Structures are given as structure tokens and as C-alpha cells.
């Protein structure tokens, strides 16, 4: 096709030139280099596409969360060290427990101590019982009358009679039972 002064690029060639100018036939390329009108048309199209791309960039929101970054774990080999320390500590504890368990002191001393403790406890309880029995000084006991001969069991029974279980009460359980 011969490209004259008034024979501009057609629509297909125009699109082809926008995609990739090297795709144009040699004559069309030659025409394009000489025709400012066709060049301007292509430049306008490219300008619109540039504008689209720039606006898309400007109008896209800002990334708030930054993307993944590799962070090397601090002291990566530490778990081996921790494992060794933990195993060592466990062995030490087992050894200590075994030593205490099998040592001669661990068997005799507790028995002796326990016996002494029981004796002391009995003595202490006996002292406490004595104190409870004689809680008041003798003079107070006399004033309260607790030591008097008249306050024997018979006298107390007279003051506070013992309730006889055979006496009819509200709780006799029989319908129509009469309170005496």
C-alpha cells in the first residue's frame, strides 16, 4: 500500500502501532515517521493510557500492612542448648532425690524425731486438760458454788429436772393426740 500525504494510518494500523510500533508494515512505519497527524493520534492514545495508569496508581489506597519479611529467629540453635540444660537439670534432681532417699540419716533421724514429737504432744495435751479442769482459781470456784456439797447431782436434778421420754408431746406422732 502506498502511503501518500493524505493516506493516513487506518484504525487497525493505529491500534497495532499503539501495541507495538515494530508490528507495523515498513511503509506504514515510514509514513508514521513523516506524518505528524498520525503521530499525534497515537501519542494522544498513549497519553490517555498513561493517564489511566497514573490515576490507578494515585487512586489505589496505601498499603497499611507491610508484606512478609523474613526475620531470622534469634539464637536459632538455642533449643539444643535448652534441651541439654533441661536434661542436665533433670539428672541432677534425680541424683539428689536418690542420695537423700538412700542416705543412712534419711532413715534413722525421722523415727527419733517422730517419737520425741509424740511424747511432747501427749505431755502438752495433759497440761491443757489440767488447765481446763482447773480453769478458775479456787476462790472463784468457791464463790460460784461449784465446789459446795449441796450442789450434788440430786440437787441439780431438782433444779433442772430430766425430761422423761415417755411424756406425751406435740411430736407423739398420733393423730388426735392430746397434750397433757
Amino acid at each position, binding site marked *: 500500500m502506498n502511503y501518500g500525504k493524505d493516506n493516513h494510518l487506518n484504525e487497525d494500523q493505529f491500534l497495532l502501532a499503539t501495541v*507495538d510500533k515494530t508490528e507495523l508494515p515498513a511503509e506504514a512505519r515510514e509514513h508514521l515517521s513523516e506524518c505528524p497527524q498520525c503521530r499525534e493520534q497515537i501519542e494522544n492514545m498513549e497519553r*490517555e493510557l498513561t493517564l489511566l495508569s497514573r490515576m490507578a496508581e494515585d487512586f489505589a489506597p496505601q498499603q497499611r500492612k507491610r508484606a512478609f519479611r523474613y526475620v531470622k529467629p534469634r539464637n536459632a540453635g538455642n533449643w539444643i542448648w535448652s534441651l541439654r540444660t533441661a536434661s542436665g537439670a533433670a539428672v541432677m534432681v534425680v541424683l539428689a532425690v536418690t542420695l537423700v532417699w538412700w542416705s543412712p540419716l534419711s532413715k534413722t533421724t525421722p523415727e527419733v524425731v517422730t517419737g520425741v514429737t509424740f511424747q511432747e504432744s501427749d505431755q502438752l495435751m495433759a497440761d491443757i486438760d489440767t488447765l481446763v479442769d482447773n480453769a478458775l482459781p479456787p476462790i472463784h470456784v468457791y464463790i460460784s458454788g461449784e465446789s459446795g456439797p449441796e450442789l450434788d447431782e440430786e440437787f441439780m436434778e431438782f433444779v433442772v429436772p430430766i425430761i422423761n421420754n415417755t411424756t406425751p408431746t406435740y411430736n407423739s406422732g398420733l393423730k388426735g393426740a392430746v397434750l397433757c
Partner: protein
Amino acid sequence: MPQKNHEDNPPPTRSATLSRQTVILTEEAVAGSETAFNSLVDLFQEDIFRMAYYRTLSRMDAEDITQNVFIKAFKNISRLQSPERFKSWLFSIALNQVRDFYRKKRLLTMLGLSGKGDDHEQDYEEENAPDPLDNLMKQDFWKHVELFLDKLSRMEREIFTLRFMNHLGIREISNILKKNESTVKTHLYRALGKFRKESTMRQFLTEEKTL
């Protein structure tokens, strides 16, 4: 006929100045350097985040996808054969993650467990509350983009987005999608034809430019 070299024809707004640095860092990361890997994360996390955002239109989902992409990359970087293809490799992981995301979302919707509404607008309410006019403009822009992309086939949409929104070259796109370059160009050609007919979208862009 001159030899075609698409790497000589870089995307309109993105320079490829970091490519050499990327190759060096990738070689170190493949050899086991965590520092090099972290530098790669710093270099590419925004690209990946945007790539995910353009496809999900949700900041939180895009962040999650970005996170998963780099975790996957970290786990598999030792298997990367060609360090010069790191970017394509990373984007193909990202693309798979986006597909997984939609698969899960579809499944949840089918089971009636998807509780999420339109968090695209919600994102803007959260992020740009101080300037409601600006907020409105952004919402309008994304609605136009969404409407336009809906008119493209799946492959056209993918290629158009990778080329003109993620600034990838034809060769990179062909590596990511595992399609040959002429297939990529054909889809791009069709997508551009539709873009050219999209007068509302183009008018919106021109108006915004004059503002």
C-alpha cells in the same frame, strides 16, 4: 525488517532501571540470603499490592494476597531457575493467588457464607474520609475502570491490566501467562480497540486531566 525487541519498548510510565539490581538480589536470595530476599520484598511489594488491588478492589484482600505471594516466593525461591525472570515469576504467583482468592470467594458465595459486601467503597470511606470530593472522584474513577474491564474478555482484561496498569512489557506478560508474544499482542490489540470505543472512560480521563 528490524529485529523486534520488546524490552527496548518499555511500558509508558515505568522505567526498567531496577532490573539489574533485581537480578543481583535474586541471585543472592536464591543462594540463601534472607537480606537479599527482604530487599526484593521492599522493591516489589507495592507493585504486587497494586496488582492485587486492581483485581480485587479491596485493600484488605489485596494486602492478604500480597502477604501470601511473598510467603510463597520465600518458600520456593531456591527453585527459581532464571533470576532475570524474578519479576515475571512473582507476578505469576500473584496471579495464581488472585485466582485462588476468587475461587474461594465463589465457593463461599455458593455456600452462602460470604458476609462481605462492597468493601471497595468502604475502603474509600475509611481511607479518604477527610476529603469527600476527592473520595467521590476516586470512586467514580474505579467505577469507570470496572465498567470498562467488564467489557473485556478474561484474557484481554488480564493482559490490558498487566500492560497498562502494572507497567509490564509484552515479554514479561507472555512469561507470566505462559502465552507466546503474538497471542499477548493480539489480546492487547483487541482490548485497545475496545478502549478506543469506550468514550465515557476516555472522556472521564480527559476531564480529570484538565482539572
